[in-house]
C-alpha cells in the first residue's frame, strides 16, 4: 500500500497570499494513500527539506507530493531531498500551486479550491508512481561552436584552454564577425581590430581548435553528450591547405565589380577575394556568383597567377559528420533592413547610411581609408545628423522591434566623438528618445561627447529626411525647447535596430532549442541560467540571446564556455528514466511505434514465450533502446494494443489526474 506524504508550501506570501495552505493540507488528509500532511513557510529551505526528510523516515513514506512552485523550478530540489532520505527520487510529484494557481487567481476561495484539486490530482498520480532508475550515457569530449564572431571565438578559446577540443563553424570565409568591421570600441576608444585580431590568430594557432570557415551546420541529431552534426563545407574553389594568402589572385582577377560586403557594399572587390587583411584563415575564396570562369568556363586568370597551385575550379561542397558533447550557438546579430523606414530616405540618398556603414567609413581600412567623405560625391560633410532608435523601441511590430537594441546610444556617442575629434569643423547633431548608458564608464563617456566634444544632443525624433540637391533636409522636433527644427545635413546616420541573424531560426529548429517572439534564443532561466538553452547540451553565447555590447558578449562567452567545460569534464551523464517501455506480453510487433519514433529508438527482437502447454512460441516484439529514447511518448499513442507506455507519465497516471480534476 502506498504511504503518501503531502507538503504544502506557503512560499512566504507568494502562495499563502491567495491560497489558504492549512485548508489545503487539511483537505487532502483523507485522500487515498495519504498518511501525513503538513504545511510550512518555505519547503525549499533547509528546514523545509528537513521536514520532508524526517517525515519520510518517520512515517515510512513511499511517495510524496510537494505543493509549491512549478516543477520546472524545484522538482530537482525535492527529488534530491527524497533521495537523501532514502526514497526513490521519482516517487516525488509536484502540485504547481504558485505559477499556475496563487499567482493567476486573486481571491482566496478560488485559489484554495483550485489548489486542493491540483493537490488531489498529484496525489492520485503519485499513488501510481513506481521507483525509476536513470540510465547512463557517455560524453563525447568535443564541443561545437556555431558562429565565429567575438562570442564564438572567446567561447572556443576558453573551452580549449581547459583542454577540450572545440570546432568553430563560420558561414563567412573568415572568422571575426561584426567586431572585425568596427573601427573603435566604446567606452575606451581602443581599436577593434587591435584587440580582436590577436584573438583570431590565437584561435587559429590553438591546436585544440579547428576552424571550419565558409561552412554551415546542416543537420543535428542526437542529444546532450552525443550530438551528431553534419557540416557543409561550401566549395571556395581554393585549396585551403595550399593557399598562402599572398593575395596576388585578388589583384589580378578581371572581375572587379563585386559589391564588397565587408565594407557594407560601399566599394567593390574582385570575384576572388580575401575579406580583409587580417582574415583568419587567410585564404582566398571565389565568389561563384561572379566568377567568369565558373560561369562561362573562360578566364582562369587566378589559376595562372597562383604559384601555389591552390585554385581548384572543380571543387565541390563537402559534407563532414562529427560527434560533439556540447553545442554553443553564437550566431550573433544583424542590423535590420531599412526598407520600411523610407521617411529617412535611406533608399533615395547615398548620404543616408546606417551606423555599421559609418563604422566602415571611418575605419582606416574602409572604402575611404578612414576619411570622412560623403558616399555620393566624396565631399567633406559639414553637418552630420545621427538618428537614434531607428526601429528600436518601436511599437509597430510590423515595422520595427519593440525592444531596445542596447548598443546604439553608446556607439553613436562614439561616432559623434570620432567625428569631432578628427574634424572639429563638423557640426554633429544626435536625435534621441532617451540616452541609455548603464555600464561601467558609459555615462562618463556620453558626458564627454556632450561636454568636451560639443556634440549637440537633442531630445526628439526626426520626422523626415528629404534629399534636395546636395543637402539632406532634416525635419525634427526638439521636445525640450518644444519647437520644430530644420537642419540642412550633409550626412545622416541611422542607428538601425539589431536583430538575430537569420540563420538562428533554422538552427533553433535543428537543435530543438526554443526562441522568443523576436527569434532570440531563450535561456533556460532568465536570471539563474542565462547561458544555457532549455535543451540540454545547448548553450548560448553573445547577441543570439539578446542585444549585447562587446564586454557583455565576452563575459557571456566565458560563462557559456564554463558550462560546456562542466559538461565535458563529466565521464558519464545521468539520463532521464521517464522513457517508453513496451510490455512484451501485449506487443504484437506491428511496427506502429517504430514508425512514429523521431529517434529511431525502437527495434524489434524475436522473443521466446513459454506457452501454458509447455510449447515455445517465438514472437516479434518491440524493444526500446533506453539510451536513445527521449521520452516524448509519441509511440504510446500510436500503439494499438496499449503495450507501449511511458514511465513517469503512464496512461494510468494521467487518467488518474484527469479523474481527480473532473471529480
Amino acid at each position, binding site marked *: 500500500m502506498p504511504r503518501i506524504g503531502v507538503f504544502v508550501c506557503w512560499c512566504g506570501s507568494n502562495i499563502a497570499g491567495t491560497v489558504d495552505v492549512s485548508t489545503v493540507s487539511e483537505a487532502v488528509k483523507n485522500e487515498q494513500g495519504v498518511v501525513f500532511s503538513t504545511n510550512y513557510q518555505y519547503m525549499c529551505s533547509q528546514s523545509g527539506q528537513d521536514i520532508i526528510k524526517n517525515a519520510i523516515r518517520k512515517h515510512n513514506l513511499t511517495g510524496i507530493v510537494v505543493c509549491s512552485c*512549478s*516543477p*520546472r*523550478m524545484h522538482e530537482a530540489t525535492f527529488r534530491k531531498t527524497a533521495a537523501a532520505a532514502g526514497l526513490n527520487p521519482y516517487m516525488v510529484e509536484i502540485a*504547481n500551486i*504558485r*505559477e*499556475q*494557481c496563487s*499567482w*493567476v*487567481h*486573486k481571491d482566496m476561495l*478560488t*485559489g484554495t*479550491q*483550485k489548489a486542493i*484539486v*491540483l493537490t488531489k*490530482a498529484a496525489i492520485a498520480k503519485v499513488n501510481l508512481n513506481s521507483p525509476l532508475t536513470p540510465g547512463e550515457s557517455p560524453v563525447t569530449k568535443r564541443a561545437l561552436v556555431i558562429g565565429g564572431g567575438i562570442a564564438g571565438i572567446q567561447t572556443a578559446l576558453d573551452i580549449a584552454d581547459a583542454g577540450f577540443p572545440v570546432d568553430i563553424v563560420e558561414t563567412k570565409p573568415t572568422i571575426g564577425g561584426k567586431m572585425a568591421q568596427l573601427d573603435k570600441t566604446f567606452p575606451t576608444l581602443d581599436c577593434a581590430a587591435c584587440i580582436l585580431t590577436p584573438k583570431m590568430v590565437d584561435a587559429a594557432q590553438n591546436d585544440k581548435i579547428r576552424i571550419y570557415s565558409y561552412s554551415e551546420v546542416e543537420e543535428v541529431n542526437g542529444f546532450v553528450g552525443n550530438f551528431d552534426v553534419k557540416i557543409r563545407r561550401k566549395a571556395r574553389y581554393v585549396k585551403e591547405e595550399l593557399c598562402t594568402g599572398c593575395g596576388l589572385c585578388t589583384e589580378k582577377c578581371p572581375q572587379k565589380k563585386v559589391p564588397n560586403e565587408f565594407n557594407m557594399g560601399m566599394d567593390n572587390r574582385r570575384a576572388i577575394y580575401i575579406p580583409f587583411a587580417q582574415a583568419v584563415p587567410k585564404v582566398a575564396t571565389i565568389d561563384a556568383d561572379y566568377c567568369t570562369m565558373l560561369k562561362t568556363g573562360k578566364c582562369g586568370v587566378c589559376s595562372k597567377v597562383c604559384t601555389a597551385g591552390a585554385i581548384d575550379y572543380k571543387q565541390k561542397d563537402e559534407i563532414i559528420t562529427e560527434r560533439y558533447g556540447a553545442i554553443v550557438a553564437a550566431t550573433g546579430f544583424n542590423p535590420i533592413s531599412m526598407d520600411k523606414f523610407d521617411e529617412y530616405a535611406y533608399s533615395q540618398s547615398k548620404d543616408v547610411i546606417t551606423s555599421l556603414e559609418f563604422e566602415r567609413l571611418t575605419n582606416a581600412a574602409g572604402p575611404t581609408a578612414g576619411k570622412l567623405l560623403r558616399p555620393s560625391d566624396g565631399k567633406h560633410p559639414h553637418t552630420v545628423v545621427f538618428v537614434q532608435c531607428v526601429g528600436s523601441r518601436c511599437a509597430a511590430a510590423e515595422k520595427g522591434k519593440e525592444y531596445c537594441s542596447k548598443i546604439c546610444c553608446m556607439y553613436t556617442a562614439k561616432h559623434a566623438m570620432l567625428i569631432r575629434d578628427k574634424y572639429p569643423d563638423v557640426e554633429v547633431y544626435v536625435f534621441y528618445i532617451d540616452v541609455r548608458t548603464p555600464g561601467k564608464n558609459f555615462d562618463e563617456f556620453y558626458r564627454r561627447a556632450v561636454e568636451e566634444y560639443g556634440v549637440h544632443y537633442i531630445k526628439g525624433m526626426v520626422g523626415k529626411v528629404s534629399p534636395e540637391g546636395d543637402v539632406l533636409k532634416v525635419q525634427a522636433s526638439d521636445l525640450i525647447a518644444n519647437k520644430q527644427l530644420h537642419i540642412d545635413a550633409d550626412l545622416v546616420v541611422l542607428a538601425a535596430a539589431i536583430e538575430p541573424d537569420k540563420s538562428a531560426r533554422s538552427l*533553433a*529548429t535543428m537543435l*530543438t532549442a*526554443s*526562441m*522568443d*517572439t523576436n527569434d532570440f534564443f*531563450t535561456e533556460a532561466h532568465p536570471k539563474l541560467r542565462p547561458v544555457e538553452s*532549455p*535543451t540540454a547540451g545547448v548553450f548560448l553565447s553573445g547577441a543570439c540571446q539578446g542585444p549585447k555590447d562587446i564586454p557583455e558578449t565576452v563575459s557571456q562567452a566565458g560563462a557559456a564556455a564554463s558550462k560546456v567545460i562542466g559538461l565535458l569534464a563529466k565521464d558519464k551523464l545521468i539520463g532521464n528514466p*521517464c522513457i517508453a517501455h513496451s510490455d512484451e506480453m501485449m506487443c504484437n510487433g506491428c511496427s506502429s511505434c517504430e514508425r*512514429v519514433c*523521431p529517434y529511431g529508438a525502437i527495434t524489434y527482437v524475436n522473443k521466446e514465450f513459454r506457452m501454458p502447454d509447455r510449447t515455445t512460441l517465438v514472437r516479434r516484439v518491440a524493444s526500446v533502446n533506453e539510451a536513445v529514447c*527521449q*521520452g*516524448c*511518448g*509519441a509511440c*504510446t*499513442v*500510436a500503439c494499438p494494443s496499449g503495450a507501449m507506455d*511511458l514511465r513517469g*507519465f503512464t*496512461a494510468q497516471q*494521467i*487518467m488518474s*489526474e*484527469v*479523474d481527480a*480534476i*473532473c*471529480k
Partner: protein
Amino acid sequence: MQVSEYKPRIVAFCCNWCSYAGADLAGNNRLNYPAEVKIIRVPCSCRVNPSFVLRAFQRGADGVIICGCHPGDCHYTSGNYYTRRRMAMLFSMLEYLGIEKERTRVEWVSAAEGAKFAATMNDFVETVAALGENKRLEDLRCKR
C-alpha cells in the same frame, strides 16, 4: 447572473517544454485566467492519447484543450505534428458524437508566450461556458 454561476470544468494538457513553461510565465507575469482551467503536465503534446480526452469528457469535463510547441519548434522535433493529426481525427469524431467542436482545441503556445496562454484560456473558458454543461458524453455513474 445565472450564467456566471455556472463554472465549466476545463482540462488543459500542456507539454513540458513550451506550453507548461508558457503557463508558468503567465503566472510569473500575474496574468489572470479562470481557475476552472486545470493543467496536466505531459512531456510532449503527442503523449496525449485520444482516450485521455474521452476520459475527461466521460468524467464530466466541459472542455479539453491541448497545448504544445509551435509547429517546427517541438522539443522532440515532430511530436506536435502527430498531435495535430491525431486530434483533428478525434475532434471530428467527437463532433459526430455530439460534442461541439468548440469544446475541444489544440493551441500552440511557446515558453515565451505567457500572455498568449492567458488569453487563450480566457477565450476558451468563455467559449465553453457559453455552450453550457457537457451532457452528451458524461457518464452519470461517474458523477459526484
